[in-house]
């Protein structure tokens, strides 16, 4: 699993189970960043709590390992304050779609220029296998002994509904596809979601490597697929049966949150020396008498 000579070296020691889909993801991530020619200290990984949230500790880069579910606002604040950083937010499906659901909605609306990788194992891994919003109907877990009762959350359709500028799905078992998708996501100007199908070999006996191997196909290769057609993209996200599409479902350019602050962000906030001139003037202006 080591990836020597790479700027984004991967640790040999992890707290993941052997065979976990996270290994495929971290390899692709490392590869993608390397291929993009980035340097370690230009990248900031922001992660939540969960198995996925540990990822940044196993790869070289700046790390802000924050709270369960709070990956996105933290990443948003960091990106606004230092736009020079390439900010990659990383979390699990529980982190992003359960605890962090509200931030998911609004980070997409804000269109902050970050990449968001969701390690989607359709289960709460770290807390030992309870249902997540992505679990399939009927899945029996410690908290759902009668089976999951809610239809699985569709992050892609939701992101498209929110007019997310880059909405993709990839698969931990397809390193080339995943690497390519992460690269495209990082290169996209604006919020880029990559929901990554990730087998959890310990707790998810439904969505296994075999399950995916038999089903995934690459939408990017499909002729005639128009990833700027919002309605078609939305419709395609519902395909989840014998065939499961991976690839970039939807991509459009729209103004980012940083653009909105362009009058302020001529250079990164953190590079701007504080200058008391304005406050001095304001106080003068406020003087009465």
């Amino acid at each position, binding site marked *: 699993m080591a990836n020597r000579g790479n700027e984004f070296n991967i640790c040999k020691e992890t*707290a993941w189970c052997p065979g976990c889909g996270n290994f495929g993801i971290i390899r692709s991530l490392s590869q993608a960043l390397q291929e993009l020619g980035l340097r*370690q*200290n*230009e990248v*900031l990984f*922001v992660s939540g*709590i969960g198995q996925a949230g*540990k990822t*940044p*500790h196993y790869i*070289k*880069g*700046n*790390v*802000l*390992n*924050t*709270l369960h579910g*709070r990956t*996105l*606002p*933290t*990443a*948003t*604040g*960091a*990106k*606004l*304050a*230092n736009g*020079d*950083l390439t900010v990659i937010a990383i979390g699990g499906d529980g982190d992003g779609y359960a605890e962090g659901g*509200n*931030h998911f*909605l*609004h980070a997409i609306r*804000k269109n902050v220029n970050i990449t968001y990788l969701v390690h989607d194992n359709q289960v709460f891994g770290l807390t030992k296998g309870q249902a997540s919003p992505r679990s399939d109907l009927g899945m029996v877990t410690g908290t759902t002994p009668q089976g999951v009762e809610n239809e699985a959350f569709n992050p892609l359709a939701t992101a498209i509904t929110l007019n997310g500028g880059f909405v993709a799905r990839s698969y931990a078992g397809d390193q080339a596809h995943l690497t390519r998708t992460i690269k495209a996501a990082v290169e996209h100007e604006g919020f880029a979601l990559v929901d990554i199908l990730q087998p959890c070999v310990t707790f998810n006996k439904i969505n296994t490597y075999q399950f995916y191997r038999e089903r995934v196909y690459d939408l990017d290769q499909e002729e005639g697929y128009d990833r700027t057609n919002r309605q078609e993209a939305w419709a395609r996200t519902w395909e989840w049966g014998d065939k499961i599409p991976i690839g970039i479902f939807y991509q459009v350019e729209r103004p980012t*949150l940083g653009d909105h*602050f362009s*009058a*302020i*962000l001529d250079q990164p*906030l*953190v590079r*701007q020396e*504080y200058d*008391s001139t*304005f*406050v*001095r003037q*304001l*106080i*003068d202006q*406020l*003087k*009465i*008498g």
Partner: protein
Amino acid sequence: MRTFNIKIGGEAGQGLVSIGNILLRAITKEGWYLFAHQDYESRIRGGHNFFQIRLGDQPVSSWEKEVDVLVALDKTTVTLGQEELRSDGFIIYDPDVLGDEADTLLNQRNSIALPFVRVVEELDQPKIMANSVAAGAIWAFLSDDLTVMQETLEIIFANRSREIVVGNQLVAEAGFAKVQEIIGERAKPAKPAHPGERLLLKGNDALPLGALAAGLKFMSAYPMTPATGVTEFIAHYGQDAKVVMEQAEDEISAINMTIGASYTGVRAMTATSGGGFALMTEALSLAGSAEIPVVVINAQRPGPSTGLPTRTEQGDLSFAVAMSFGDFPRAVLAPGDVEEAFYLMGEAFNLAEEYQMPVVVLSDQHLADSYTTVPPFDLKKVEIRRGKVIAGPEAGPEYLRYQFTEDGISPRLYPGFGKGLVVSAGDEHDEAGHLIEDGEARKKMMEKRMAKQKLVEARALEPVLCGSDEPEVILIGFGSTKGAIAEAVHILNQEGCKVQGVHLPQVFPLPSSLEDILQEPGRKFIVESNYSGQLEALIAARFAWKPTGSIRRYDGRPINAEYILSTLQGGVCRGK
């Protein structure tokens, strides 16, 4: 000190805030000192609100119940306000509003009927100018000369058309003339000899201004009364001050955005009230663990829960001090007035950054919404201390974010500013910031963090004293009761009772010098705006000490000197 008090009462939306604002400016310009507070309901139109201005020839630090001029825009003001009217006070009312009931309602008090709207209509001006009629009318009690009022209207409507300025001046003059006609040669309130330049600000101006002066660069917040003013101030000046202010989808997002920004190396804050603060507590614990500076303004209002959203209380003290789960270093500041609010914001950022921890600034509705005249802030007194920060070649690849040091403070590196990587985590970690499980390592990291708490304690802001040096009675408080205590102390000392006031601008950790005060002879009372005595419990927890008695208020209204004196009920000094 004899002060002059004006109270304008009416429904939300009737323009009392506009009248108040015109007057505040004119009064300040004319040279008086003032204190003005607002009382309003949690609604946009209707109900019963008031705006009360107290002015004098010396600095005014609190409010007083008795009024000299009561301006009634509705009936309720007449009914409720009457008993507060001094015997020589006047009610200015609109006969078109009071109608037939005027005589009964006014109950033979001195009064002036002034049909505000009719006056403007008769002068062919738009209705909205009725506010200036009222302002002009009140001005007649303050001065024989309308010049300053006219100049003030000029400034206030500066970015409107010439007709609007002139119209307002015209109707103000009409109001002024009408009152002058009735009250005649009545004596005017004394004015200070050398007033000089002053600022006229409320807490919700001083706090964000203090933050800007301290080099704030980022703010994220979700609106919540009475903190919204801070947020809107930063939003308003953000572009010019080069500060990013981003409204969040909720308070959890606001605090976490703030933390994300701060991690990268900018001064960042958020502002909220009790409910929003509760939602932020989880992230405060993260800031404690990951050692990320963050400043949170909690503008208190009466709880529990939604309570009285537009009123005042100091009921979040215990919660702000306990702050969140687990032990981590922290500080809680509590400015007592507009001036302190400005300077303490700088201290809050210094503490947050020097000790890499969360700092809460406790405000409340009374501080937030009350105006005072203060000397122009001196930026030379605002020192910016950003703590241990390294950059450039020092920040080599071996950089350790949580390096063990003698004082527990590890040098910060801003990510991207050096070769080193900045690894921060809320999980327990080693010096490099990576996750650990080992007990010994945990113990060491915990001790490193908590060492900072001792430093914070050692340099806690000192109590601010007033009144007698050899007191028989000591009144102790924090936050917005400062002015009320000072005035009560002043009155008691004038009555020959030796009393000292102790204001605590920092409530956690408390300064150890407070213990000396507690050990002094004399009776001690704790003054606070909450039911259970939260400051009292805090002092007891630290010094194992109990006061002689306590003065508390929890009806949502601000404590003033009269309230303190009436609770003490005389006889506070030995032998009296």
